[in-house]
């Protein structure tokens, strides 16, 4: 039996500088669209999470 946290936001990757993390998930800021995509991919690959698009330049990475 594998034990771990599921259905949990691991990280927020955003271009919106006004977004402030409430504390549970780290926030990564990207300066442009390309970097946003790249950052999201890197965090997702490292954590085996899935990238979800919240639109307007914000991605969240969720462990399913």
């Amino acid at each position, binding site marked *: 039996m594998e034990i771990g946290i599921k259905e949990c936001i691991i990280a927020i990757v955003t271009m919106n500088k006004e977004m402030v993390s409430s504390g549970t998930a780290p926030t990564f800021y990207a300066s442009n669209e390309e970097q946003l*995509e790249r950052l999201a*991919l890197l965090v997702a690959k490292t954590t085996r999470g899935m990238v979800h698009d919240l639109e307007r330049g914000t*991605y969240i990475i969720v462990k399913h």
Partner: protein
Amino acid sequence: MDKHFITIGISIIMGVIARTYMMRIDYRQYPTYPQAYLSHFTLGIIAAGLGAVVIPAIAEKEYVAVTFLAMAAQHFRDVRSLERQSLDNIEPTELVPKGTAYIEDIAKTFEARNYMAIITATITGFVMYIGELLEYSITIRTILGIIGGVMIIVFLHKLLETKVIEDIADVKEAKISFEGPILTIGNIAVMNIGLKGSQKVFMQKGIAVEIIPRDPNATAILANAGQRQAIQHNAAIQLGIRKDIDEPDFTPIARRNSENGNVVMAIVTMEPNVECLIEAVRRTPILESSKRKPLDSYVGKKVDDHK
């Protein structure tokens, strides 16, 4: 030589044949390795042996001996939990999990197959015993026993035959599109795929199907999450999925249209062949645990009539 020796021998052989007959690689893709074959074959021999001695024991008025059948039942229940445990253990290693309902179904099947060996051996013994009472020669008794055994194998095989999706629903191709980041199949939102790269892969190589249930019974079956998980697993195993553990984006998800009960599923396979996907979905067995028959109930019928 003991007078029951031939009866017991033939019964065991028939029982083992019954078990071996069911032990080919089928849709479950399990067991696929030699060790599992050997262990199930051995258990089959034990089961057949137990079934074979029932009639001779009764014939000898050794009624107490029959009580060991209770012990046998306990033992084969253990087979079920053993199977369940081992499949549960390898579940995290599957790219697309089987799901607990499918595992339970497989475990149940393995238990039932051992009972099949017991029943076949017992019936064979019974037929041969009748032959003995009628004072037939040993050759005729053997032939009668074999015929009886084969008949019961065919009968049980028919009885245990599982229905497949094809019997309850139509499967047809569906189109994948994206509504913003949401993967949509035929107007049903399936999941949010953030990465542009993954979206591109889905648009280029993704194939999708829509499963349309034929009646309320079928709708209820397809609503079961375990059944849908089994469909996902079968499609992924049989077509070969284009995915690794760190790519959850490509996990096939079968979503239900809550308006009409249709189920849609998209998958990215090694070879994007939609015909094969349709075939794989059609041949997915209907799990025992997901079987529902609302039409058999008074209220279910009434609801259906008022539609």
